[in-house]
């Protein structure tokens, strides 16, 4: 009978016999026994043995009535829902029981029954469900919970049967606009409409007008936190401001929600505000400040949420020339205890935030990470330094010096990474070789990885004019040509051709022929062979016939021409950014990919156009507080008169502006009680301390 034994696999007949066995004995004991048997069914269902459990359908129907116990009912309904895909014949029988439950006076049971009705994909269930949904929603006196369930059931109905959905959608619109309806119901009606619209391709966007949107925002204080967050979510993209002042007004209405303790409310409010900023003519500096402050505070949430917030910050940084957030880099310094995915993201942000004025601070940090224990982290930091050098033209020297400094550590993986990075830096600034070239070639023997070997080969080839012993250096790579990784073989091949065309001496010629022979005769890779043959023919045609089209100079031009300058593109396509901004807080923003790219079923989201739309988003001016003009009129009126303090002994709320005398300050005592000293951050311990009889004596 122990609980542990519930959690194991059972055969249907075992449970059946247990259920029946319970029947004969005393009432109480048998009830417990039967309940245990039912629990076993649930466990087995969640362990995935549904086909075995399906055999027990008749028993479930039989016991539906006997124990009039909520727990038993829950299990029975759970069973029905789990069995839904089987569409067994027993469902017709069950329908009677479910409707009976729905018509009972018991609130939770009715909710349960309605949920079951909506989750069994059989037409008789749908009919019953539709009837019930209309009944519940039309009746004013039903409880909020039941009505919400009815709304969600309506959503399921529209998914299951297309014919009726038009009528249901109209009905939902009515509920949403019904002023007398409870706030929670109206908000959820909107949400359901939004969800339907989101998943059905044929439907237009909701397009709410100013008054409806206003109405909905007025509901916010009356809703619970989750409804709050959903309401803001549903408004984004569905309300289209028609002029600038509407947009300003909505922003002001939404701003208070940024101070909600629930992260999802904050992020959704944030999303809505960001969406609205596409329709304003200017931005207040205070708004930028408030947005930044509230998003930064979210960084102290648990890692998963922090991750989400970081990704969203990245999004706003990459997307805009003039970022809408102003945040200090120091928030993104990596902590020792951060999980690796957060470290990664922070590093990315640091890279994006780097500008001339904060570069030294960021480089200092990156240096710290480069010598970190975590190899991945350290590599990425070095890579970031290299990219910064490419990105910020004026700060190359600083970055290069740091890289060279790191090279002195002579730690193997750092050397590998730095060599690879230098290739990019030198491609961007070919003239900067003096400071690094000679230091780098010291490490010719220690480069191991294909990428860094390839880079080293490239560097040596590129600056062969400045290296007296370049051939010697180069030969250290060619000696073992066949054992190299394919990409190294490729770079050796093209380098050897370059060296030969630049300086056709017997030594280079021999080397060149050796490599060509090796790659054409001994290599297994057709690509390498092809390329080698191509080079070979090119060279021989240039050398043999003097009158041919190609001479040595032309060959040099082909194999050793000027390289295009590389540039880093850290900006996403504006259209993608637009879509991502509408998806703040969704999984799309974690992957930084537009929804449609991964799932064709999802509608791509676009910013709806209106007269107030700003086509040039980076052109929005940020206005400082002093020049604040018309938008302040909305808040000013509220901070006018304040009632005076009343002298009545009973404290009234009106006298908030005067300090109350009754506040009990805790003074520092010479002997502090140990109870107070053990305060920790854990709320439970705090609570215990507080609940002591005389906590402050």
């Amino acid at each position, binding site marked *: 009978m122990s609980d542990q034994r519930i*959690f194991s696999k059972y055969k249907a007949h075992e449970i059946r016999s247990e259920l029946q066995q319970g029947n004969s004995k005393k009432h109480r004991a048998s009830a417990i026994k039967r309940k245990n048997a039912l*629990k076993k069914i649930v466990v087995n269902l*969640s*362990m995935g043995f549904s086909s075995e459990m399906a055999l027990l359908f008749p028993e479930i129907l039989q016991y539906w009535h006997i124990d009039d*116990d*909520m727990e038993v009912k829950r299990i029975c309904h759970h069973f029905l*829902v789990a069995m839904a*895909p089987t569409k067994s014949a027993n469902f017709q029988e069950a329908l009677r029981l479910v409707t009976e439950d729905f018509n009972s006076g*018991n609130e939770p049971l009715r909710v349960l029954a309605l*949920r079951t009705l909506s*989750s069994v994909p059989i037409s008789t269930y749908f009919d019953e469900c539709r009837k019930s949904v209309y009944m519940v929603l039309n009746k004013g006196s039903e*409880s909020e919970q039941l009505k919400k*369930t009815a709304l*969600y059931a309506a959503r399921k109905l529209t998914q299951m049967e297309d014919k009726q959905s038009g009528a249901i959608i109209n009905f939902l619109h009515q509920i949403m606009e019904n002023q007398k309806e409870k*706030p929670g119901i109206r908000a959820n009606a909107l*949400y359901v409409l939004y969800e339907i619209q989101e998943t059905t391709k044929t439907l237009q966007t909701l397009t709410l007008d100013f008054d409806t949107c206003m109405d909905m925002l007025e509901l916010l204080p009356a809703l*619970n936190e989750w409804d709050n967050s959903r309401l803001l*979510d549903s408004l984004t993209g569905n309300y289209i401001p028609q002029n600038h002042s509407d947009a300003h007004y909505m922003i002001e209405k939404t701003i208070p929600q940024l*101070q*909600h*303790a629930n992260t*999802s409310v*904050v992020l959704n409010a944030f999303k809505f505000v960001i969406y609205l900023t596409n329709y304003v003519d200017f931005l207040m500096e205070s708004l930028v400040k408030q947005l930044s*402050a*509230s998003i930064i*505070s979210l960084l102290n949430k*648990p890692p998963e*949420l922090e991750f*989400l917030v970081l990704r969203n910050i990245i999004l706003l940084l990459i997307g805009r020339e003039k970022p809408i957030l102003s945040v200090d880099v*120091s*928030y993104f310094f990596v*902590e*020792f205890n951060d*999980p690796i*995915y957060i470290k990664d993201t922070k590093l990315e942000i640091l890279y994006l935030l780097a500008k001339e004025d904060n570069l030294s601070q960021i480089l*200092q940090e990156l240096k*710290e990470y480069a010598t970190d*224990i975590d190899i991945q982290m350290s590599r990425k930091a070095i890579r970031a330094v290299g990219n910064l050098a490419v990105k910020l033209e004026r700060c190359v020297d600083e970055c290069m010096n740091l890289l060279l400094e790191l090279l002195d550590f002579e730690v193997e993986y750092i050397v590998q990474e730095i060599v690879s990075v230098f290739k990019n830096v030198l491609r961007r600034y070919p003239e900067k070789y003096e400071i690094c070239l000679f230091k780098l070639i010291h490490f010719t023997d220690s480069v191991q990885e294909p990428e860094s070997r390839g880079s080293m080969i490239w560097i040596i080839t590129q600056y062969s004019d400045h290296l007296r012993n370049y051939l010697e250096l180069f030969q250290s790579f060619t000696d073992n040509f066949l054992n190299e990784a394919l990409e190294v073989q490729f770079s050796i091949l093209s380098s050897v051709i370059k060296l030969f065309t630049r300086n056709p001496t017997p030594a280079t010629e021999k080397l060149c022929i050796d490599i060509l022979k090796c790659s054409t005769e001994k290599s297994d890779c057709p690509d390498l062979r092809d390329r080698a043959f191509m080079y070979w023919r090119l060279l021989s045609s240039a050398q043999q016939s003097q009158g041919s089209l190609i001479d040595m100079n032309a060959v040099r031009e082909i194999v050793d021409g000027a390289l295009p300058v590389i540039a880093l593109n850290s900006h996403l396509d504006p259209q993608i950014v637009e879509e991502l901004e509408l998806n703040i*807080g*969704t*999984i*799309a923003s974690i*992957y930084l990919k537009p929804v449609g790219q*991964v*799932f064709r*079923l*999802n509608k791509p989201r676009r910013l709806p156009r209106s007269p107030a739309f700003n086509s040039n988003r980076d052109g929005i001016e940020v206005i400082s507080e002093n020049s604040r003009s018309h938008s302040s009129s909305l*808040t000013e009126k509220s*901070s006018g008169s304040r009632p005076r303090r009343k002298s009545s002994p009973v404290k*009234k*709320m009106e006298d908030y502006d005067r300090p109350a005398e009754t*506040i*009990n300050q805790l003074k520092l005592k010479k002997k502090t009680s140990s109870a*107070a*000293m053990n*305060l*920790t951050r854990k*709320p439970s311990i*705090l609570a215990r301390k507080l*609940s002591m009889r005389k906590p402050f004596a």
Partner: protein
Amino acid sequence: MASCIYFCDNKGKTILSRRYRDDIPTSAIEKFPSLLLEAEHESSVVPPCLTHNGVQYMFIQHNDVYVLTMSRSLSINVAEVFSFLYKLVDVLAEYVKTVEEESIRDNFVIIYELLDEMLDYGIPQITETKMLKQYITQKSFKLIKSVKKSKNVVRPPSQLTQSVSWRPEGIVYKKNEAFLDVVESINMLISANGQVLRSEILGKVKVKSHLSGMPDLKLGLNDKGIFTSDDSSNKSDRSTGKNSNIELEDLKFHQCVRLSKFENEKIITFIPPDGDFELMNYRLSTPIKPLIWCDAKIQVHSQSRIEIHCRAKAQIKKKSSANNVEILIPVPEDADSPKFRYSHGSLKYVPEKSAILWKIKTFNGGKEYSFAAHLGLPSMTDVEVPKAKRPIQVKFQIPYFTTSGIQVRYLKVQEPKLQYQSYPWVRYITESGDDYTIRTA
């Protein structure tokens, strides 16, 4: 939102599941263990989102369980999912103490009930434990009985339909009291040469309310933003240098606080939930000097010994003192035979953490203490392993003191019907945050 919720053990095998929508095939959860394994292969910490076959796996880790939800749509609101999962774990913790594999198995019936109440069709609903406890209790209720005694019918309390979804009616206390705890945690990142790279104050105001009826509370703080409406008095304050008001950077409030009222009038008013809750938290990133300053000189003579000289100073007012100061200094993993010289506190070598732990019970303001340590290193080592640059971690508590200078000016309680006298109590404490670290060279 979420299509389903799964509780999985640390290998990713299902303990308990609740499915809300049918759009995810049952085979999806069977892939979860192997996906976890794959991700673990790549890095030791698995990112909280995985995707496979068009199914999004989103999960958090808590003790030895994974709490997982899945969805098909990319436009799922992860912010809501993660906030909810954390809330779910919080709520479960109130029911079953510690949320772990065993307790989930033991209480799976009640967890099913909770999942039914907290999510409808995968959409989060009520998550206030106080409210849930009204009708989901540890015992199960008999319907037969309740029908007979119609008074005791268990049904969602009518409050759920009211605007105050977090407080039931009819609460009575003999003595009406409210306890406020202002807790500030200091996060600080200090470079090896003593420079403060980042510092921030994370404050919380926790409330324990023992108040009857439906009280309306009003909280006054010395925040600049809150008090700027009082322009005249504010100026005089500044000129006299007394009661200087501080400026909080960002405030976040519990859902009971009327946000629009705060935005417009800068007044914090609310009807509190019963019992404990976190009323608000705030953040300040003003540069502050380290409250507990610590300077460690670590000299490693490889293959022979390591020497540490450490000085710590309490840079706080002379009158106050820091309690339970703990300074954790990392040493190489293969260090042995520690020898210490110190004047204050207790010094211990903690091999399992590869660190030296210096504990000082009370550290009075302005005092400076130091210690010297000497540890041996093995003369034979393997190939040079790169040293982990673990930071020095500092922990402390300073009671009766807030770094930001925040003060509760008043807490007014008004119950329109009962009109009782109430007793607010306030307590302040500053402590080290999760990240009070000093990097080592």
